[in-house]
């Protein structure tokens, strides 16, 4: 796909959203109704701080609030959720939040700054036996102060360009300090937040029910009387349920073929939302295994991939579409098309790139290269992309065996280095270099670097961009990072995912975002009859 096409499609999508949004906004929201939606997996427990999956966010997020959240129609703009206002000091070392008044937990107790402090203390310094997955994101926080019941001050050790965004993370639910004091693991088995919906029922393996919280602090919200998340693991069953109107949406994403099936069956009864997805598929080389310890070999394999043609073809059958570097295409800090084309493997002349790839393999003394390509056994989008990559490598004389073990074996192989080359993914809740670049920095600094390499230059550039508060300077640092990362080619981006959501027309007030982790508190969602 041409970059201009990518940009125009992003633009068209944005315009379409603007159009849809304004049409929906023109209607008067209505109270009442129960939103039924499908979720393709089930949360293992109820603790926001210890979960990583959309399967958790979709049913559980409506019970909670966070300090900040993303302004749904205006992503990535941030707005207050529990916070009425926030201010960062000029030196970037202090962030002060003022809380909204009259916020109540579902048990009727009032929320104060102590609850915010207790929740963040739990994330930053988890008590014994508590799992805090996002602890590292708050390493720069030195202390949390609560001068009064409505004010929370976060003191930082060093400026951090991503810290404000961190506070909008959908995972940072605010819990009751009193409940945490009784049992630090209280949230693991109990739901008790301040969110728009109260917990009613979780029938294991079947469904999750929430009902409207009458004392919710946002006036006249939520609109819905409740919601019912139905767990449907089988893709065909999910699409059938959507087609029959048994559920009105599935908020993770559909494949192009499912979208077409639903469009042809339901016509104008549904609305299709599409957007570049904040998930990339990356090829990771195990640099501890020969010949993948040689940058020339890795770069040759990157050069062999015709990303532009591949993305255009794959987008017809798989939920991928756009070509991008280490950051999502369309994000303001992602490489512009002109910059992207300069990186190895991202040029448009595939004949020249493959000639260079063969030359690099010759220089490295690698002849008749054969390897096993580790891939997840999840059909969409892993299998088609895996098959595509194998075909691309075959075109420079490399023979590849497709190895798709079940997820647990795949994960263990990736983690323990029992692979040569693997297809990995990187999904985040927000466009943020501090998150997406973790896939590329040294293994000693990142728990998700499966390439088992260390590169001080990448780490240094990562650190510099984190501390850089000027967007222009940060952009330049990011390009330097990207140039080095893609030349060394330890881990190489292939194609980015493309999010397709099919909603029944009744659903109003829900806004698409590039992440399936966002916009799921259902506070502003309503049902048109």
């Amino acid at each position, binding site marked *: 796909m041409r970059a201009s096409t990518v940009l125009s499609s992003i633009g068209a999508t944005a315009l379409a959203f603007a159009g849809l949004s304004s049409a929906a906004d023109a209607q008067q929201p209505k109270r009442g109704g129960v939103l039924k939606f499908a979720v393709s997996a089930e949360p*293992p*427990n109820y603790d926001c701080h210890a979960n*990583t*999956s*959309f399967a958790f966010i979709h049913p559980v997020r409506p019970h909670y609030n966070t300090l900040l959240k993303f302004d749904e129609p205006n992503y990535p703009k941030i707005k207050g959720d529990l916070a009425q206002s926030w201010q960062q000091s000029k030196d970037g070392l202090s962030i002060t939040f003022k809380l909204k008044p009259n916020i109540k937990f579902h048990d009727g107790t009032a929320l104060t700054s102590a609850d915010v402090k207790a929740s963040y203390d739990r994330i930053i310094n*988890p008590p*014994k*036996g*508590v*799992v*805090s*997955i*996002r*602890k*590292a994101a708050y390493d720069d926080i030195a202390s949390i102060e609560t001068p009064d019941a409505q004010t929370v001050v976060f003191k930082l050790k060093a400026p951090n360009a991503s810290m404000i965004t961190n506070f909008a993370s959908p995972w940072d639910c605010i819990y009751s300090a009193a409940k945490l004091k009784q049992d630090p693991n209280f949230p*693991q*088995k109990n739901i008790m937040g301040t969110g728009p919906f109260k917990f009613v029922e979780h*029938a*294991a*393996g*079947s*469904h999750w029910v929430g009902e409207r919280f009458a004392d919710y602090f946002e006036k006249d919200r939520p609109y819905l009387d409740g919601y019912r998340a*139905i*767990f*449907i*693991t*089988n893709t*065909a*069953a999910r699409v*059938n*349920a959507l*087609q*029959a*109107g*048994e*559920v009105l949406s599935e908020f993770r994403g559909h494949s192009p073929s499912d979208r077409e099936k639903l469009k042809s069956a339901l016509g104008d009864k549904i609305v299709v939302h599409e957007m570049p997805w904040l998930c990339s598929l990356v090829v990771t080389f195990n640099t501890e295994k020969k010949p993948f310890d040689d940058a020339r070999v890795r770069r040759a394999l990157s050069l062999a991939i015709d990303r532009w043609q591949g993305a255009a073809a794959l987008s017809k059958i798989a939920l991928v579409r756009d070509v991008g570097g280490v950051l999502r295409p369309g994000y303001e800090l992602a490489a512009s098309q002109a910059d992207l084309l300069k990186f190895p493997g991202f040029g448009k002349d595939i004949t020249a790139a493959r000639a260079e790839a063969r030359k690099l393999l010759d220089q490295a003394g690698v002849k008749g290269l054969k390897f096993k390509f580790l891939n997840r056994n999840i059909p969409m989008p892993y299998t088609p992309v895996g098959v595509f990559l194998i075909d691309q490598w075959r075109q420079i004389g490399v023979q590849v065996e497709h190895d798709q073990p*079940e*997820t*647990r*074996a795949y*994960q*263990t*192989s990736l*983690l323990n280095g029992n692979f040569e080359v693997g297809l990995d*993914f*990187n*999904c*985040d809740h927000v466009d943020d270099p501090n998150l997406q670049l*973790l896939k590329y920095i040294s293994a000693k600094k*990142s*728990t*998700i670097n499966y390439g088992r390499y260390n590169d001080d230059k990448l780490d240094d550039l990562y650190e510099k961009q984190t501390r850089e508060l000027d967007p222009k300077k940060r952009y330049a640092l990011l390009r330097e990072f990207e140039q080095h990362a893609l030349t060394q080619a330890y881990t190489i981006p292939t194609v980015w995912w493309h999010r397709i959501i099919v909603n029944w027309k009744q659903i109003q007030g829900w806004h698409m975002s590039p992440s399936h982790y966002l916009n799921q508190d259902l506070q502003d969602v309503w049902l048109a009859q």
Partner: protein
Amino acid sequence: MLRYTIHRLLMMIPTLLGVAILVFVLLRLMPGDIVELRFLAEGGRVSPEALAVERIRLGLDKPMWRQFFDWITGIFVGDFGISMWTGRPVISEIGSRLQLSMQVAIMATLLAITISIPLGTIAALYKNTWIDHVIRVFAIAGLAVPSFWLGMLIILGLLLGFGWIPPLTFKPIYEDPWYNLSQLIWPAIAVGYRYSAVATRMTRSTLLEVMQEDYIRTARAKGVFERLVVARHAMRNALLPVVTVVGLEFAFLIGGLVVTEQVFNLNGIGKLFVETVSRADYTMVQALVMLVATFFIVVNFVVDLLYAALDPRIRYR
């Protein structure tokens, strides 16, 4: 008979112990662990320290023998442990699904028996006539068509024909019979068809065999009505292998409806089995294997007792 019954009951203990050791060891030989899966499979950025905290919480840091000892001693006091994935008691996780699986199994069995015994009998009595051919086609088609595929056809038929699919969530039959049946009748048909095909073939062949026996000829020679010959003399003997097939199929249905449950989005034991194996939820898989093994053993035992009831010549020592 009583001695035999007690002997068979006691024999269940070493069998189940063997199953327990086997499943415990095999599970741990498979690559991957639940902590890695839960925190890393979705792309989580979790430190090794956090993974270690979770492993300790789940008791995975203990030596194997200790884990086995804790589990097996728990079983003896009725404590099957806590699911490593959900943190809820294994018993409640299985209990909430067993009702559905049992109902589908019972409905499919009733359907299969209702269809197969008359059809198998008719096919045998009208051997090599057009009636037999039609029944044979029906039965062979049932054997050839996988239950899940038939399930998919049923769903598609309902969806395209009526714009309707069976309910996606379960309500017990005593709460809402209509809702319950409108959900479960379809998978029962999908599964019951194959089940009835097996039993029809078995009924036909065993009845044909029995009808050649000397005592049948004797009964006819005595002038007994043909209907009585079949019902009283032939059927009782012909049904012995059918009872075995029905029993084993019933036990299989409890945990074996893996794909059919996915197709109909049924929250049953088969679906739970697949999910827990793929999650490496050791405690849950162990309990499910023990449950299914117990079912097979008990059903076999009941079948053996039924043999005695059906054939008075059979006496166990």
